[in-house]
């Protein structure tokens, strides 16, 4: 039987942990609310942008009999080199949030390896970097700090660097993996092909039959500007989405930790009371037997 003092110390330690986890949960829920708001606002912009790109792509597709003759829209069913951009958190203590993303990246790695495709990893977020470093897998980019504080300029700089490499022909396909936010209690792994833009993934709404005027009228100028913007924004949005998911995952993890701690305090208190009772009983027996022997 553990002695009274030990149990008491353990109880207070667990109580302290409980305080910490509860505070972390509150912090996460406040941050989540802010990030969620940000995500909601930028979603409108993202949707409009996709819509516009979609419309122009369709118009160009109609004009060219062989489909789109543009570097951003070429066929990528048999890539030789694939870049995987993945987003994890910079910090831990958020349950399986990072592990899920890493698992998906590993699966992709295995899939592409089976098809003899060379894969280049580009990591955003310390946790993912740490994992692949530990496993001696090389990464092209290691970006820390962006996933905990997404900002448009840095996101754009990163994705443009990757897009440049695509335009130069160093890679055939760019895939993006991140753990996205669904609601307070659910996160979902999202995997998207960023380049080449796949017109089939763009939502096909009823295309207006009317002629579309484009200014400047060299089609490619506008299209290229639009694609660039589109991928920049997709990158930025993924970061925000991932951050929201991270906060919701952490909130959940900390909530679970808090209730576990509560449970443990309960158990330990019972143990403590039992031990105390036992000590008293033993003491009583000692006194009584001592008195008996003196008679």
């Amino acid at each position, binding site marked *: 039987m553990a002695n009274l003092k030990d149990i008491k110390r353990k109880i207070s330690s667990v109580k302290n942990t409980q305080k910490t986890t509860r505070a972390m949960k509150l912090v996460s829920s406040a941050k989540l609310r802010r990030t969620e708001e940000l995500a909601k*606002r*930028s979603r*409108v*912009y993202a949707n*409009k*942008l996709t819509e*516009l790109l979609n*419309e*122009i792509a369709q118009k160009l597709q109609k004009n060219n009999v062989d489909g789109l003759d543009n570097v951003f829209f070429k066929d990528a069913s048999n890539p030789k080199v694939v870049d995987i951009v993945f987003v994890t958190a910079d910090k831990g203590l958020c349950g399986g949030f990072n592990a899920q993303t890493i698992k998906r990246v590993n699966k992709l790695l295995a899939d592409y390896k089976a098809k003899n495709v060379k894969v280049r990893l580009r990591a955003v977020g310390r946790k993912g970097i740490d994992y692949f470093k530990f496993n001696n897998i090389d990464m092209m980019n290691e970006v820390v700090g962006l996933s905990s504080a997404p900002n*448009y300029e840095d996101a754009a700089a990163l994705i443009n660097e990757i897009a440049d490499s695509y335009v130069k022909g160093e890679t055939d396909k760019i895939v993006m993996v991140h753990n996205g936010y669904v609601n307070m209690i659910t996160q979902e792994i999202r995997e998207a092909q960023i380049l080449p833009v796949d017109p089939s993934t763009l939502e096909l709404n009823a295309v*207006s039959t*009317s*002629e*579309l*005027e*484009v*200014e*400047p009228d060299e089609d490619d*100028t*506008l299209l290229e*500007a*639009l694609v660039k*913007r589109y991928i920049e*924004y997709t990158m*930025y949005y993924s970061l925000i989405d991932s951050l929201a998911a991270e906060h919701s995952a952490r909130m959940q993890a900390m909530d679970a930790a808090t209730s576990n701690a509560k449970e443990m305090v309960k158990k330990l208190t019972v143990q403590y009371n039992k031990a105390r009772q036992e000590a008293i009983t033993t003491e009583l027996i000692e006194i009584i037997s001592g008195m008996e022997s003196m008679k």
Partner: protein
Amino acid sequence: MELMKLEIVTPNGVIFDAEVKQVTLPGSEGEFGVLAHHATLVSLLEAGVIVIEKADSSEVAVAINSGYVKVDEEKTTCIVDGAVVISGEDTDIEKALEEAKALLKSAESSKTAIASAVSKVEQLAKTL
């Protein structure tokens, strides 16, 4: 005069969404005005000022740095990177003006375009 729907979206959310009479946009090939039932059009926008004539004929100016506009028969959608609204109803018009100028100056357009946009903003602010 017939009205059309105008929407201005920035990465920070929708900043304008209403029925308007007319809108003048700073296209990359030159400024152009849009009325209801305009032919479908997509254009690049450069640093400049969007002038909106609202349903009650009052004017609102929106300074933007760059973006795109999609016009179709029913609706005009502007997708812009950064925008500052300067409206006559605003009490703090001076501050909005300062912000607008800062936004325009940070844009990556040609110097002449920015200079003309800045002077236009100043002019408009006086009339608002």
